[in-house]
């Protein structure tokens, strides 16, 4: 519907390419980035599962990583060694835990491409914002006395407001609801330039005021913010 097209035009505004990629870690050397590391692990595991389901074909043999049949071979470094069937955990359990993933797109106004984060990997807002900070590597978090959190690009001094689109298609400010509710409701994230957010707020207030004034019946139509991006 209309919201769909608005969303895609937003994307092309931001990226110009409509180009999506699963998150790579821009990791700080030596620092464990939770989101990125998680992603790497999960990809590795699914690769292992693929291997086992094709046992018996020659195609399988050429794909098999050399450390699958490791009898007698040298010790492989732990995170890299994807040994079939180790650790001994039933597939049912592996799948049940794996499915608690919630990957959402993160768009930043002005960045050439989007990223993805797994909301289930974080315990709360602080962790999420720190991770976004690292991911886009040029922001620091500025805490305002009124509990609003903004990300700041120190070079240009531009402030970014973290917003998200919820299940109803509305763009909301990050941080108002309990964390778990947010994880459940959030469909995508957008770091919006603060100036734009303020402008939008003003425009919206004006629109609502005008509509109320003009209609005699109880008709209020609140535009989803995305409508205004067209």
């Amino acid at each position, binding site marked *: 519907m209309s919201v769909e097209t608005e969303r895609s035009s937003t994307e092309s505004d931001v990226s110009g390419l409509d180009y999506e990629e699963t998150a790579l870690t821009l990791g700080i050397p030596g620092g464990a980035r939770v989101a990125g590391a998680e992603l790497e692990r999960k990809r590795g595991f699914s690769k292992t*599962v693929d291997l086992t389901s094709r046992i*018996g*074909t*020659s195609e399988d043999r050429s794909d098999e990583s050399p450390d699958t*049949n490791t*009898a*007698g071979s040298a010790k492989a470094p732990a995170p890299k060694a994807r040994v079939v069937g*180790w*650790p001994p955990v039933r597939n049912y359990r592996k799948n049940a835990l794996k499915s608690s993933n919630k990957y959402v797109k993160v768009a930043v106004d002005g960045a050439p491409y989007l990223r993805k984060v797994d909301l289930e990997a974080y315990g709360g807002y602080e962790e999420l914002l720190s991770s976004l900070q690292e991911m886009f590597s040029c922001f620091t978090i500025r805490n305002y006395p009124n509990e609003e959190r903004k990300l700041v690009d120190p070079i240009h001094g531009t402030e970014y407001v973290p917003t998200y689109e919820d299940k109803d298609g509305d763009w909301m400010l990050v941080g108002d609801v309990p964390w778990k509710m947010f994880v459940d409701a959030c469909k995508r994230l957008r770091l919006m330039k603060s100036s734009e957010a303020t402008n939008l707020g003003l425009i919206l207030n004006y629109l609502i005021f005008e509509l109320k004034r003009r209609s005699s019946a109880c008709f209020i139509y609140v535009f989803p913010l995305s409508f205004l991006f067209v």
Partner: protein
Amino acid sequence: MKVQSAMFYFPEEVIEHIFSFLTHHHDRNTVSTVCKAWYKIERLSRREVFVGNCYAIRPDRAAARFPGLWSLSLKGKPHFADFDLVPPDWGGLAGPWIEALARSCPNLEELRMKRMVVSDENLELLGHAFPKFKALVLVSCEGFSTDGLAAVARSCKSLRELDLQENEIEDRGPRWLNSFPDMCTSLVSLNFACLKGEVNLKSLERLVCRSPNLKCLRLNRAVPVETLAKIINQCPNLEDLGTGSLLADQFSEAYVSLVCALQKCKKLRSLSGFWDVSPLCLLAVYPVCANLTGLNLSYAPTVQGQDFINLIQHCVKLQRLWVLDSVGDKGLTVVASACKELQELRVFPSDLFAAGPATVTEEGLVAISTGCPKLNSLLYFCQSMTNSALITVSKNCPNFTRFRLAILEPRKPDPATNEPFDEGFGAVVKNCKNLRRFSISGLLTDQVFYYIGKYAKALEMLSIAFAGDTDQGMTYVLNGCKNLRKLEIRDCPFGDGALLADVTKYETMRSLWMSSCDISLRGCKALATKMPSLNVEIINEWEAEMEENLNNGVAEVISNNNNKHFNNGNDDRKVEKLYVYRTVGGPRSDAPDFVWTL
């Protein structure tokens, strides 16, 4: 003369009455070997039959021997099938068993199956063939869908128990719950926690309403808090509850009604589920904690840190605890101080590849062993362990019957001393005289097997991975462990010498599994030749090589029962996977192409 005639006229009914006090199948197996008369009396009176390997005997023969059986327990695939080491379509089919029972044992009431392949048709037959059927328990099975469940629900008029544990079930929609007839009021236990799909919530509520005897109910993830609250209100006498998704809003009606409902559950002893649980819903559970004997948080990765500590402190009567390693050593220390009655602990890995920070280590285990002296069953996945910790644990808890330790990184030595874990595991077998099940990991030499062979006299099942140096290791175990029933080995340097060290030993065992070891086709053929009472099955992936050799004329095709296998004279080929088991059923007729029975 008088004494002789008294012995001749000893009535069968008396013997049968005496046998009725023997419930365990081991004892019944023993008395049946005394003489033909006792064999006959025993077999006609046996009601519960346990078949630990479904290929050890043909279904028809089992059904014919025990025509009065009410309850059958079956196990199919080898244990390592749980970890993707057995190719799909290997076997373990339930069909032939259900068909044989349908022909010979119409009074069947209970069927328990583990690691077997069950189809919807099999479940249809089950529903129609056994009018008295009461209990179906499926663990780690596959091959069926919710349609099969519907068939069972529909046809079994007096169904008491439907228990589905960790099965792979194809989801064909939520209709199956509607299939329980309106007059069905006999349910005592229903567990569908492993179903992945949606559930018809209204049907579920109605079913619970008309099941006054319900004691155990385990829901799946699709059941929300609102429904859970309604259900608990209907059955405040529940003893075992598995929640659905425990995610609720702070001031929602659902949360409030859940809190009220749980407070009424005075008989609740076991809790599980906790899918997607929010900290708030965890609070709702506190009132029932004091009476809990069983708690399963192993599917709740978000329950950690202070949330976990606050919860577990209330669980003072806990005997069985399953958690994820995200609770950390700190969480385990609190368990040790709060749960003095703890007997069984399982700590599962939340991070399978040990790439993150260490979550549980030897510290947590030592704390548990110090605080919980009644501990007798352990499954512990950890990133780090030491010999001294293991020695301490074995002295604190000499009552272990099951001890399974999985150090996540294969062949990792003791980080404190850089030594193998021989002494640590050796201490466990020395101090824990009742040890029946043992799984070891980390860097291990032949020495640990020397200890196991020498001290683990009660040992029945041993699982070994990435361990040992020479054939001597395996030989120690085969020679020393008199009660060994199942031996499973992967990625160890044991070869033909070990395999053939004591071939008659395998007749005293249920099965042997060896994969990625150093055995050759020659060794396996020798075993098969010497021991015709065993099925020596190799799983080979030589197809590509086969094609080439056949084309070159280097090999010929030989027939082996229904399979064709090729013989190129090269018996020195390494065998990738070997499964040996004793059987009176001969080579199995349902072996797929990749299984070669020698």
